[in-house]
């Protein structure tokens, strides 16, 4: 029976001399999803990705690829775009792309047809016979992206795929990733610090910090959970008066914006979990002129920062 998980990582440990890069990492990536692998620099993302691409092996633990233990022969079914990537300078663009296609085991005619299609799609077809050295950074990024997807892998690993792109080309590549995911049922593992892309593309994420998975799950659920009773309230008056008015009924977390002309402010509050928000609003309206009230929508950036900071505090 086929597994519904593209990746099932269980208890993976990896050490380099006296540094433990990954500590008992468990992670499951559902087949056909776009999965975000998040984490600050040095969290262990690249180490984990290198294991998935067969570059290194775990000291302990096991990685399953579509239900079977990850082996060298599975690597042909993986596409990988590393964060730090380059191209051979002394080759022509098309020739280089063909070289990688042949390394992937594609026949010459098939490889050329696929590459021509991708070159056209990402608007680099005019560069086929040009020297790699003539490519701009963005153009080179597109070629690198094509090299990682041309063999239509079952699993595509993208490490910071949008860095170096202007917004238009970044969007074009984002659309290409989504199209591959939708139309080819390609599972995508996206490692990035660009939280906008995570929200746009990823259904599920895992957050790595200091070699451990500190948060994982469905993005929407994560955002709902992360609200933690927080609401955004707009009011007219002074912040001091508002603080006095709410007293101990709520915790003022942040003044998000202020208009000194109209004396309006927007603040982030945390209400105790058992608070009836409607009743609380009715009560506070008697003291302050309330202009708006909405549940706080944490972004992935907020969740990322808050989780990592909390973790750092705990460790300290």
């Amino acid at each position: 029976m086929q597994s519904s998980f593209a990746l099932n990582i269980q208890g993976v440990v990896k050490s380099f001399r006296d540094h433990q890069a990954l500590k008992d990492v468990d992670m499951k990536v559902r087949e056909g999803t776009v999965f975000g692998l998040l984490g600050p620099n040095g969290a262990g993302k690249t180490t984990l990705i290198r294991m998935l691409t067969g570059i290194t092996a775990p000291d302990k633990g096991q990685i399953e690829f579509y239900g079977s233990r990850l082996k060298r022969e599975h690597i042909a079914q993986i596409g990988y775009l590393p964060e730090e990537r380059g191209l051979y300078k002394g080759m022509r663009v098309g020739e280089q792309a063909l070289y990688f296609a042949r390394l992937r085991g594609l026949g010459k005619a098939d490889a050329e047809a696929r590459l021509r299609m991708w070159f056209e799609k990402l608007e680099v077809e005019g560069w086929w016979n040009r020297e790699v050295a003539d490519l701009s950074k963005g153009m080179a990024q597109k070629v690198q992206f094509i090299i990682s997807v041309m063999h239509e892998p079952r699993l595509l690993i993208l490490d910071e795929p949008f860095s170096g792109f202007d917004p238009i080309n970044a969007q074009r590549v984002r659309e290409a990733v989504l199209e591959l995911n939708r139309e080819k049922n390609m599972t995508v593992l996206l490692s990035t610090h660009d939280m906008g892309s995570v929200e746009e593309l990823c259904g599920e994420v895992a957050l790595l910090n200091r070699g451990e998975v500190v948060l994982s799950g469905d993005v929407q659920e994560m955002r709902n959970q992360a609200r933690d009773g927080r609401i955004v309230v707009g009011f007219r008056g002074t912040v001091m008066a508002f603080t006095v008015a709410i007293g101990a009924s709520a915790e003022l977390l942040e003044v998000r914006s202020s208009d000194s002309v109209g004396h309006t402010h927007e603040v982030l509050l945390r209400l105790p979990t058992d608070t009836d928000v409607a009743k609380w609003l009715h009560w506070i309206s008697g003291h302050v002129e309330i202009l708006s009230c909405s549940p706080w929508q944490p972004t992935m950036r907020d969740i990322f920062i808050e989780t990592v900071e909390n973790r750092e505090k705990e460790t300290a």
Partner: protein
Amino acid sequence: MSSLRHIIFREWNTRVRRKAFIYGTLAIPLLLMAVMGVTAWLEQSQTQSSKVLVVDVAGMVSRWDNQLEAWIPICPECFPERTSVSYRFALESMSDEAFLASDIDIMVVFDDAILQHHKAQYFFDKVPPIELESIVENDLSSAIERFKVQEMMALDYEAYKRLKTDVSLTGRDIITRDGHALGRSIVGFFFSLFLFMQILIYGMHVMRGVIEEKANRIVEVVISIVQPSQLMAGKVIGIGLVGLTQFALLTILTIVLVQGGAALMESMGWLTPSADASISLDFKSWMAGQSAWSFLLDVNWGLMLFCTALFYAGGFALYAASFAAIGAAVDQESDAQYFLLPVMIPLLASYILAILAIENPEGTLAVVGSFVPFTAPVMMLIRIPLGVPWWEVALSLGGVFFTAWLMLRIAGRVYRVGILMHGKRPNWRELYRWMTYHS
């Protein structure tokens, strides 16, 4: 296996199509010919201009000629006319000013004391070539000897010359029936030198290639498709084949140049002996008549080329593996110097030993050197033109290939870890750790 083929082809193809490779390969024989021509011309022009003034104070080797109104040698055959030396004679030495103003290169002065202590003094303003000194010594010795025989001993000089016996030894190899051992070992050295240079040049190509892949970070993409050992092997084989391609091209080019030159010489009649214009020689017959070069016809060129290719393959793999490991261990070429020395020492040692082995190609040094895997590729080629039992060549080759395999395995371990490491240059202890590291 298919991936390895593509890596080899890329490494080979991107290098052989470079203009530098094509022009470089074409230029090597032309440059060699130019260097040899210029050297010969310089040597010739240098020896042509040597004028020697023999100041015979006691009048032992020269006499006044009324017709010529000049001092001439009593024994003209003792001071033969040569293109490299011309003699003049005088009874009195020139003043320093007059010597400097004259076209004389050296002034040899002696009196009858030469009969006792056999010494003459010479003066010069520019240091004369060593060979000029030996020519003048020989000529003057003959003239003094004649003077002693005729004037002091009152003997017939012609009879003395007939009695005088100079024994010279000529060697003949019992197997090759050839007496040109030195010439043959020089042929071997030429191949050794070529092999040494190819290993060094293309070994550095391997190192630079690895550094380039590492520096522009493409290596991570490649090793996510193929194993690092495959990438390294492909690089070593591909670049090694570039060296072999150049060797093959140079061989073809040399054959074409030699055959073309021979045909030209034959058609222009340059090979006709001056003594008999009716005889027209072909190039091979002409070569056979040249005592200094005739041994070249006896060299088994096919065997030499075959053995050079084989020893190049083994020797290159042996050294290129180390160059690849060094490339993987560093981020930039300047950092590589630290690791290069231990790799370069055996290679340079083999070259120095090869120079020493030219004069004694079958001595202990050459024999031992041709079996030590790190020096064998360069050293064995000196011995092969002299005739080496096939099993010795096979044993030497076996040692080279086995060591190359061992080096590839060890270097592969360093390479595998090193290509993903960036930052501080590792030390030797870390390199050892990489060798024992299990990914």
